């Protein structure tokens, strides 16, 4: 509770506070998208031929696909030929550890409030930072290495653990999955990889921090998390981008594999630049996230706090293949000004006695549009599948919209699926009640919104929860009264 208060006091800057960029030397691919560019990226990254072939195959598939239009979002199509698909800060040689990383890069992250210095970090969080197209640093590698945990950039994993990458890459999100996933498979530049061996409980939070810096550059990262039998890991993802007038594209893929009795918690606090008050600029966030509970009694939970991006298109999903496996999705999605979000989840029940839980809290303000799209699918073999979905929408003002699209698809009669939905407005009388006790309106809104989103925020690790609360308040500042 002391945290809440501090947050309320901390509120001062109304504009997107991460909206700056830094000039430093970069290594860039030519603008445009074709086979040569893909070869260029692959060569640059010194990739084995199997990976280049994989990329080229994805590119062929992508060329035959069209951009999906079913989401409840409206935006100017981006000219994908006008983008740059690779941009990396130039480092004289590859950093072996954090002390070798370019101090300028370290400074960027310090400015974002992220210390890459292991000694300086109070809490045990290992972090992999991705700037534009490449991973620039990974902390606590040695500590983790002693437990057999692999946590490194994707490129490094390709070189050092090719067998793992070959086994799991595209196994959860195949390149054929959708337009953006195929594009990502063709041009992805880097990302994070993590492997937790059998029976190991990862002793610290693993985290990836994504930052777009360069202009006209798409960010296409891939994250692959493999939790072997009876292991546990909690993974955090954070992101920011500079404020620019043009829209920028972010099309990531996240794949999670959970073996028998393994548990993976994946938390995101998404704070890409949302565009300005008039809807100019902002990130297009078209992300495919999926996890498979491959083994019996495995569990994957997604928690997301979505505050940024001009357009969000994102459905973290769980394939519940193992018997008794559990999938969870906790989401707070806030939209303000002209932001649009179409987000939700898919829970696919394949194994027996599988359970899923969906808690979605949408908050719309300004002229924004916020949609929940969720699918619960129970396959024939999935005896005794259980799902509970709670989809709430909170409206602020009367120019915004909230929409709920639940799809339920049941092929086994023993399934029990419950769906609850509510829509509410922040009441004038709630705000007046707070005012009457001495609480200013902005703080009252923050208090009410954080109360509304509490069930989701409670799922986040402590420091992340604090960050998320701050973001919610910041995103909504000035939207009432």
């Amino acid at each position, binding site marked *: *509770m*002391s945290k*809440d*208060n501090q947050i*309320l*006091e901390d509120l001062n800057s109304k504009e997107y506070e991460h909206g700056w960029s830094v000039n430093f030397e970069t290594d860039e691919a030519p603008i445009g998208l074709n086979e040569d560019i893909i070869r260029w990226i692959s060569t640059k990254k010194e990739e084995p031929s199997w990976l280049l072939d994989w990329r080229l195959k994805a590119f062929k598939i992508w060329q035959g696909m069209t951009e999906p239009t079913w989401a409840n979002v409206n935006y100017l199509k981006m000219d994908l030929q006008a983008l740059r698909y690779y941009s990396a800060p130039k480092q004289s040689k590859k950093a072996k550890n954090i002390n070798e990383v370019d101090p300028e890069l370290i400074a960027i992250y310090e400015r974002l409030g992220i210390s890459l210095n292991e000694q300086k970090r109070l809490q045990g969080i290992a972090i992999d930072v991705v700037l534009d197209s490449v991973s620039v640093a990974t902390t606590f590698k040695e500590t983790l290495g002693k437990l057999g945990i692999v946590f490194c950039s994707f490129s490094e994993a390709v070189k050092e653990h090719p067998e793992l990458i070959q086994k799991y890459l595209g196994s959860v999100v195949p390149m054929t999955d959708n337009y953006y996933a195929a594009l990502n498979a063709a041009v992805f530049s880097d990302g994070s990889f993590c492997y937790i061996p059998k029976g190991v409980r990862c002793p610290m939070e693993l985290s990836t921090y994504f930052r777009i810096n360069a202009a006209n550059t798409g960010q296409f990262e891939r994250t692959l998390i493999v939790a072997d039998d009876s292991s546990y890991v909690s993974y955090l993802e954070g992101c920011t981008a500079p404020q620019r007038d043009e829209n920028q594209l972010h099309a990531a893929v996240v794949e999670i594999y959970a073996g028998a009795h393994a548990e993976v918690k994946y938390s995101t606090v998404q704070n890409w630049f949302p565009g300005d008050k008039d809807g100019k600029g902002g990130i297009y966030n078209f992300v495919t996230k999926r996890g498979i509970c491959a083994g019996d009694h495995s569990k994957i939970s997604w928690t997301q706090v979505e505050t940024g991006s001009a357009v969000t298109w994102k459905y973290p999903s769980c394939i519940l293949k193992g018997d008794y496996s559990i999938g969870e999705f906790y989401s707070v999605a806030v939209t303000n000004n002209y932001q649009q979000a179409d987000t939700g989840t898919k829970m696919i029940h394949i194994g027996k006695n599988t359970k899923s839980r969906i808690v979605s809290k949408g908050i719309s303000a300004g002229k924004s549009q916020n949609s929940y799209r969720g699918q619960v699918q129970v396959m024939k073999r999935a005896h005794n599948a259980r799902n509970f979905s709670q989809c709430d929408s909170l409206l602020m003002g009367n120019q915004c919209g909230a929409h709920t699209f639940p799809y339920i698809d049941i092929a086994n009669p023993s399934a029990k699926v419950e769906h609850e939905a509510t829509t509410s407005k922040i*009441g*004038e*009388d*709630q705000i*007046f*009640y*707070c*005012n*009457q*006790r*001495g*609480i*200013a*309106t902005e*703080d009252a809104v923050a*208090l*009410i919104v*954080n*109360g*509304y*989103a*509490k*069930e989701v925020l409670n799922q986040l690790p402590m420091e992340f929860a604090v960050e998320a609360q701050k973001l919610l308040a910041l995103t909504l500042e000035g939207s009432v009264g």
Partner: protein
Amino acid sequence: MLSIKNLHASIEGTPILRGINLEVKAGEVHAIMGPNGSGKSTLASVLAGREEYEVTEGEVLFQGKELLALSPEDRAREGVFLAFQYPIEIPGVSTTNFLRTALNQVREYRGQEPLDAVKFLSLMKEKMALVEIDQKLLSRSLNEGFSGGEKKRNEIFQMAMLNPVLSILDETDSGLDIDALRIVSNGVNKLKSDTTATIVVTHYQRLLDYIVPDFVHVLYKGRIVKSGTKELALELEEKGYDWIKEEVDSTATV
């Protein structure tokens, strides 16, 4: 402390308060009674700064300041407290968290340091004892699923925590059981001092048996039509409002 002069207020164009005059001095307890719909809650809301009500005439001085010029939160920070007739629910926000935010904003306004968690907790313990409120209630979502009586007790607990200069209790007695009424009233009495004042809005004498008023006013059709001492309340209990209504309506000027 509080001086209301010729206060007129309307909602959506309908006049509700039509010339209220009231003087409240430090140390005093004023009871406001009157038939349903006469404007008692409206008066309380206007004093607290609810925006739906438009003040069309008159002025209110509170400790020498133009009360009507202040925002609702600044009125609260200046020491005006309203115990709501119908307390509002705020899901997901505990009373504790709510009050911590409120108290620290009030303190900041008064140039005081925020209370740290330990001091806040000990203040809570002290005030909890005063109104005999259960700690469990305070960690639940504010007013959500509270019984009628629990809501009212919680209002007085909040009052105790915020330590106001002027407390306006709008039908705090309704919903309280016999024991709770005694406990809550005793709490209110203990909070009284030479420097604070209380306005109690009530329909029933039984509250005034505990919180003994210095003055009793009858509000009818947006005006204070009769004022007296505590004996007036007894008379009303016995005779109802008809005799006052008749008196007023027969001499009514347009």
